[in-house]
């Protein structure tokens, strides 16, 4: 029974942990603007994330290697340094977006300007990273993030045109008045929101924190193969909920508060409160994961002791990097740059950077020296290679699309 509960908790945590500020913002924007015609981008992104998370988790459990160990071993010290700097900067951008997201939720609840909340949220986040045990940090906010299921409930209360959503999903086309570059820019943003590199780094390092062994592969697979797709469904629900409420009024989502309007319309104050709780938990958890991921990847590159499995005094560099990441992201968001814009830029740049993180995982997952008989099978390799090609194409298209569309305008 305890084992069953543990498995269930892992799945629930993966569902809640999948959604972050990137998914909230991009799903809200695209649902209001493009209807369900970009659902395919979430589906592809979620499958890609699931395939690579399973691989990274297996490498962690069987090979005892985290993603960044693999990057350093397989790409060499110099290339890995470039990779580490790029991933670290991207993490900082994402962390700034998450901090801003938590502060915006608090502004929606209290009416106090989000800039006042940012340093307070940062201090609490750092304290949580410093003091809370890893499993608490992971499970508590993961479970609270499940509050976002309220979007699924809202869909059934709203006058949802299921047939229309189905048609738009399976026969997608660019809506009238929208250009192809803009359509594909937002497809990239949805794709990037599903495949954020920090999540894979966190997932594999988390495996080491939880002392995964070859016997933990089933648990890890449940988390990735069930949890992440269900998380993808939450993103789709947020997108779909915007269609009957925001699209008919031509609302162009530019603020986090607008993402909750469909839930409020369907379920009133209770629904709104639950949605905001979900926003808070998802962004806070993602922020903490992002700060930890920065600590993981830098410590793993330099070979320092890392992780919350050590007492802070035994891994001082790791905790210092986490603290520095939180301070830097706080400073960045306090420049008054719009958190929603930061989110959009971070997910799009994330889409450009994903092959750097994912390629070494595919290589190590095929190495018999590390993996023994748990190397990738044909299906994993076919899917992994296919998604790597998709990631490369996306990566090459990202910056031109960013400039051509002026970030989706």
């Amino acid at each position, binding site marked *: 029974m305890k084992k069953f509960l543990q498995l269930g908790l892992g799945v629930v945590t993966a569902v809640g942990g999948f959604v972050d500020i990137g998914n909230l913002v991009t799903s809200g924007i695209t649902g*209001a603007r493009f209807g369900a015609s970009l659902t395919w981008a979430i589906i592809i992104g979620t499958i890609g994330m699931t395939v690579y998370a399973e691989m990274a988790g297996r490498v962690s459990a069987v090979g005892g290697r985290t993603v960044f160990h693999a990057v350093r071993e397989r790409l060499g010290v110099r290339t890995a340094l470039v990779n580490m700097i790029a991933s670290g900067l991207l993490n900082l951008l994402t962390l700034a977006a998450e901090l801003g997201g938590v502060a915006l939720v608090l*502004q*929606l*609840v*209290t*009416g106090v300007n989000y800039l006042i909340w940012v340093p307070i949220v940062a201090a609490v986040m750092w304290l949580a990273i410093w003091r809370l045990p890893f499993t608490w940090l992971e499970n508590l906010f993961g479970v609270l993030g499940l509050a976002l299921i309220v979007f699924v409930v809202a869909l059934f209360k709203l006058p949802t045109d299921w047939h229309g959503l189905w048609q738009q999903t399976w026969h997608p086309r660019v809506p009238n008045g929208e250009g192809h570059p803009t359509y594909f820019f937002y497809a990239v943003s949805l794709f990037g929101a599903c495949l954020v590199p920090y999540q894979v780094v966190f997932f594999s390092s988390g495996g080491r924190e939880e002392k995964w062994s070859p016997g933990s592969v089933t648990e890890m697979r449940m988390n990735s193969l069930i949890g992440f797709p269900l998380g993808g469904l939450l993103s789709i629900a947020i997108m779909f909920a915007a269609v009957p*409420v*925001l699209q008919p*009024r*031509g*609302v*162009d989502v*530019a*603020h986090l*508060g*607008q993402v*909750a*309007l469909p839930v*409020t*319309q369907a379920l*009133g*104050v209770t629904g*709104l*409160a639950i949605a*905001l709780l979900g926003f808070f938990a998802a962004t806070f958890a993602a922020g903490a994961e992002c700060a930890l991921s920065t600590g993981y990847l830098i410590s793993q590159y330099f070979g320092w002791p890392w992780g919350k499995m050590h007492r802070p005094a035994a891994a001082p560099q790791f905790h210092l990097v986490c603290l520095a990441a939180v301070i830097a992201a706080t400073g960045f968001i306090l420049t008054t740059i719009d958190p929603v814009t930061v989110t959009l830029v971070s997910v799009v740049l994330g889409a450009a950077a994903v092959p750097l993180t994912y390629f070494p995982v595919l290589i190590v997952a095929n190495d018999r020296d590390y993996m023994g008989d748990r190397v990738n099978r044909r299906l994993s390799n076919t899917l992994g290679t296919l998604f790597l090609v998709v990631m490369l194409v996306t990566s090459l298209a990202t910056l031109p699309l960013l*400039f051509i569309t*002026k970030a989706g305008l």
Partner: protein
Amino acid sequence: MRCWAVVTCRVIVIALLSVLTSCVSPAIDSAGYRDKVGHAAEKMTGIIGSAQLAAEQDLAGKAFGTYADQVISDAEQDAQSVVGQLDSVQPPDEASITLRNQADDVLQNAAGQLSDLRIAQRRGDKAGMRQSLKDLSDSLAKVQQLQDSA
């Protein structure tokens, strides 16, 4: 090796020039100006829609005050930004100046009504909110007319 260095330098220079030139707004003609007015009207339609939705939810007791206030305040700021952005564009000819005056009138009016709605909402003035919503509906029709004509 030297050849690679030259190619790399050229690619960097071209990339920098592309970025720099994309930051400068090109001079626009009459059709381009009409497009900008149409785009501003389209944006304003969505902004009004967002504020109306939040205000209606607040009046129906579906949303708590701070939330509705924030969504309406955001809409008000977005509306002022749309007006400011259009004002910053130089109309290229006489016809565009006429269109600008017409658009400015409609968009300024809508932005003002969003301010009225925000003030009424913060004061808890339900009657004032209903009146602002009614005014905003009229404004929305004019904005949509502007969008169609531009």
